[in-house]
């Protein structure tokens, strides 16, 4: 059974969700908690049986679906996808556990389970068509969640979300079909298998076109500047649970796509596009942080801050060294935990006051001390305080991009300043000062249901900040094997460009460990240093 654990992980929530229609309305909550709890436990089991030292794909499953076109049901997991899957199941579980929504809860829980299936599906698929199917399917439950449980402008927001992402994903699909066609031209057989594609070395001009096509699909999902405007609407209208999952998991599909597909498939194009992508990411970091600073609605602050943080993830990914990519994958997890928690926290006051405008609050620290404490911790995690989860990823990402060009790190590093500005001023508006609004005087502190979601996230945010090793090690192995090694091998062929060879080094090269300093003090080591690099 264990060899089919990935299939079980995908389809268990779906089957359970369908069965959920037969469950009594009063017990659907317990049912939802049980199902998502089992799913989460299964994902933990997957971690337990996962060989963390192995950087390759594990628990692979292969079953032909449409052999004529090389479309297979191919699954597999490595250190990169493993933890994103665990995060998806965790966030879903905690989301359902701390659900305070009252309206039509049965359909909501079933929708969430369906959404869980698509999320897990995206991250474990090793077939492009399968990946694409789950990718697009994930839009449907989210569309429904925003459209049915959202705020007053929910229809506009959900349609915008759907059409925008869907349209650009179609471009990605064209790219995928073209890639399979190229494979067919070279080998005589169609294949959509990502692991097969990893073996294909493409000439530069084709890489460029394909990179661009994939980029459009991923960039909108991330969402990268200037494709980000659907996100504030979606967050603004979505119910708390929708925002939590959207920010924590759905956005990660985009950055995951870069790491899983763009980088290893098109290494030279990736290097060529670095200035473009990094510039967009830098704009994204600073510009959206400033937009966040101008918001009056606390949920919009968090929404824009999400975009800003995703910019740092992009920086790490396009650093194209182990430190940067591992850091960016780790930051995906960190951002998932922290932004998920922040959206849950915003939901707490929205439930009580039905407003998210910051000037309506003020002085909450004395009325809701526990709430203020958790919010404070999560805020500090969000601004990347050392010993919280986000610091590890942010530090590594910035350090990685520093190697590409110090200027990128300097500008990208502004994230830690501008992030502190909007976060601290938002915190000040909501929690500090005197209680001026009489409506706030009687507010109740966080209740038990809310704590079910918040406490575990707080613990994780600190635990992984202090001890990231159990997660960073497998990520490191996978980044070497499934990203950088593939890129490195490809650029060593005749097709590889000089620029790429300069930037991407052999991930398995051993660094000399013992260095004996030269006897004379200055200028003796220029040559020594360059030899110390990678061969």
């Amino acid at each position, binding site marked *: 059974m264990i060899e089919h654990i990935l299939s079980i992980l995908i389809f268990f929530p779906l089957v359970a969700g369908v069965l959920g229609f037969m469950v009594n309305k009063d017990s659907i909550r317990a049912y939802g908690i049980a199902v998502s709890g089992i799913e989460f436990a299964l994902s933990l089991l997957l971690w337990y049986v996962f060989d963390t030292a192995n950087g390759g794909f594990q628990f692979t499953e292969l079953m032909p679906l449409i052999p004529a076109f090389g479309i297979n049901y191919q699954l597999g997991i490595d250190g990169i996808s493993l933890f994103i899957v665990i995060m998806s199941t965790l966030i879903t579980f905690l989301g359902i556990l701390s659900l305070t929504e009252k309206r039509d809860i049965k359909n909501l829980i079933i929708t969430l389970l369906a959404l869980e299936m698509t999320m897990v599906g995206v991250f474990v698929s090793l077939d492009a068509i399968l990946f694409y199917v789950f990718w697009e399917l994930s839009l449907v439950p989210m569309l429904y969640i925003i459209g049915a449980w959202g705020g007053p402008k929910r229809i506009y927001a959900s349609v915008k979300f759907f059409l925008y992402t869907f349209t650009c994903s179609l471009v990605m699909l064209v790219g995928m079909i073209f890639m399979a066609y190229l494979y067919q031209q070279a080998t005589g057989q169609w294949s959509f298998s990502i692991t097969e594609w990893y073996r294909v070395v493409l000439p530069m001009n084709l890489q460029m076109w394909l990179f661009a096509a994939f980029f459009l699909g991923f960039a909108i999902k991330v969402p990268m500047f200037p494709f*980000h405007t659907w996100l504030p609407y979606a967050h603004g209208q979505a119910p708390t649970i929708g925002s939590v999952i959207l920010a924590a998991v759905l956005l990660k599909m985009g950055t995951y796509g870069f790491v899983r597909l763009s980088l290893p498939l098109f290494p030279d194009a990736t290097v060529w596009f670095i200035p473009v992508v990094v510039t967009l990411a830098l704009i994204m970091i600073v510009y959206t942080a400033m937009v966040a600073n*101008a918001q009056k609605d606390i949920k919009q602050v968090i929404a824009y801050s999400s975009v800003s943080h995703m910019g740092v993830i992009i920086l790490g990914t396009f650093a194209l060294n182990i430190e940067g990519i591992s850091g960016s994958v780790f930051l995906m997890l960190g951002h998932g935990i922290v932004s998920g928690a922040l959206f849950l926290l915003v939901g707490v006051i929205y439930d009580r006051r039905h407003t998210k405008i910051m000037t309506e609050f003020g002085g909450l620290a004395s009325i809701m001390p526990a709430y203020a404490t958790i919010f404070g911790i999560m805020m500090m995690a969000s601004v990347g305080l050392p010993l919280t989860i986000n610091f590890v990823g942010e530090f590594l990402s910035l350090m990685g991009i520093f190697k590409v060009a*110090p200027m990128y790190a300097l500008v990208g590093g502004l994230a830690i300043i501008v992030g502190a500005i909007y976060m601290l001023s938002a915190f000040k508006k909501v929690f500090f000062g005197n209680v001026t609004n009489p409506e706030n005087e009687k507010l109740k502190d966080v209740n038990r249901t809310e704590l079910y979601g918040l406490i575990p996230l707080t613990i994780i945010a600190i635990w992984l900040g202090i001890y990231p090793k159990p997660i960073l090690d497998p990520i490191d192995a996978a980044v070497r094997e499934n990203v950088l090694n593939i890129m490195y091998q490809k650029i060593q062929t005749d097709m590889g460009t000089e620029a790429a060879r300069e930037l991407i080094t052999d991930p398995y090269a051993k660094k000399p460990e013992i260095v004996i300093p030269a006897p004379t003090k200055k200028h003796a080591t220029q040559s020594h240093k360059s030899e110390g690099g990678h061969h």
Partner: protein
Amino acid sequence: MEMFVYIALFAPLVGSLTAGLFGAQKKSLMVGVFASGMLFTSFIASLLLLVQVLQGHTFHVEMMTWIKTGDFNVPFGFVVNEVSVTMMMVVTTVSTVVHVYAIGYMDHDKSFNRFFAYLSAFVFSMMILVMSDNLLGLFIGWEGVGVCSWLLIGFWYHKESATWAANEAFIMNRIADLAMLVGIFTLYWNLGTISYEGIFATVGTADHGMLVTAAAFLFVGAMGKSAQFPLHTWLADAMEGPTPVSALIHAATMVTAGVYLVVRMNPLYDLVPEVGIVIASLGAFVAMFAATMALVNRDMKRIIAYSTLSQLGYMFVAAGLGAYWVALFHLMAHAFFKALLFLGAGNVMHAMSDELDPFKMGGLGKPMMWTFIMMTLASIALAGFFPLAGFFSKDLILEVAFVGGHPILYTVLLLTAGLTAFYSFRLVFLIFTGEERYKLFGFHPHEAYKYMLIAMSPLLVLAIITGFTFKGGYYEMVTALLPAGEYHIHNPIVYWIMTIGTQLFVGAAVLYAWIKYKNAKVDKKVEAGFFYQLLFNQYYIPKIYDEVFSKPYAELSKMCWKLDNTVVDATVDGIAHVFYGTAEKTHTMQDGNLSSMLRWMVIGLVALIVTAVIFIGITVNADAIMKLLGH
């Protein structure tokens, strides 16, 4: 002995977490006592370690891996050596005193427990900062003390000015922290390591330009934490926090972290004297710049804060000129007498219902004799009179500048010494002597609780004896790690002229302060003058920052938001509208009328056929066409 390293480090954390558990509950004296006890434990452990270090042992423990990926590997590692143990002693001594004192000072505060949770957390962060064996570990403490400082400045969070100052401090420090991160990145990618040991082993053979970059960026980081110009405005505003916080964080420990960083990285800074001279020059400038602002200020705590800033400048002069042990020695001496001065100011504030303007006090020496004595002695130490601590540590910095051949730095520092004596005693005279002006304002001052005074006494003793008892032994110990240098002026005549001359000059400054302020007379004409206003308004720098940075940033933020709505998003919607509009117009084609639809079908068919014919024509006759085009 490794056990003691962990005890020294983690005892404050235990105290903090315990106090945090009771954070939201009613005041409990036990919380304060327990936290202080934990601090005392940490102090004892540090003392035992100091004894070991004096015997020539050093300790290096690695607790566990922290971040490891690629070639990057940073553990939680801690070092107790001659330099870090100095800081451990300073931190634990001052913080134990401040904790005990705060039990009395925060007596009436409803957030008593929360206060101790924050204060002990600060000490823990500070211990990480000084004990860590690598730069990233230092950065944990660096940011940790930043957060604790944020929490403590804004401790009375209902006050707008307090929360504003807290945010200002945090954000300004963050600016410097970015520079520090860049410094760390530079060192990592060039040397392949960020542990002190690794850096020191490879730094001698590294590229000089790279070292200059790294040293400069690390120093910018230090400038933020040590509030050097132009990142200095937060320190004076930080006085919004409770006074024990000012004593511990914003005088004795956290703000000296920048000096500590330069001292700790001495093998790096030794190789880049050009950066060192910039550090020293900036230090001398800040020493004078801050002292001038202290001359006219009317806020007791701010005066002491500017004095701190000025003394930090002195330390940077020493560190920049390569006299690391002198910088560290002054850091230590300064911690003792400055903390004492602040705690004394706390007593005064308690007595005066939190009044801060010394012009509303006067004659407090009578009801508050002990505070008067302590603050006077602390001021004597600060002014650098023989034989108190400041004489030994501060005059040494003057000698360093003189011996090093930097007459300008020396002159600036000497003048600043006069200013220091003037503003310190202006404060003492205004508060404690002369007419009892407080009666006009209806205050009923009283001396602080006895145990608060007793708690302060160790600092008093240290402020007096640090100079003449520790200097020799300290030099012996710390130069095992830091470059030795006696900085003696060999010509005895010059030496005596200088020493006595400095003493006379400083004495004259005190005398001038007495003449000027014994009656607390205010000269209206001087006050209206340009220079007075310039100094009183802190050279208008806070205002300039507000106009040049804060407001434009807020405006720009709003503009960005507008841009986001009106340009970026409107483009997306515009594209969608084009499709939608086209569909709106064309859907009338499908009106269900058979004849009109047949007509459209015919048009479509014709269009298709025409296109097909053209394309087939092109492909079939491609060669002919090419020939025609001349290929």
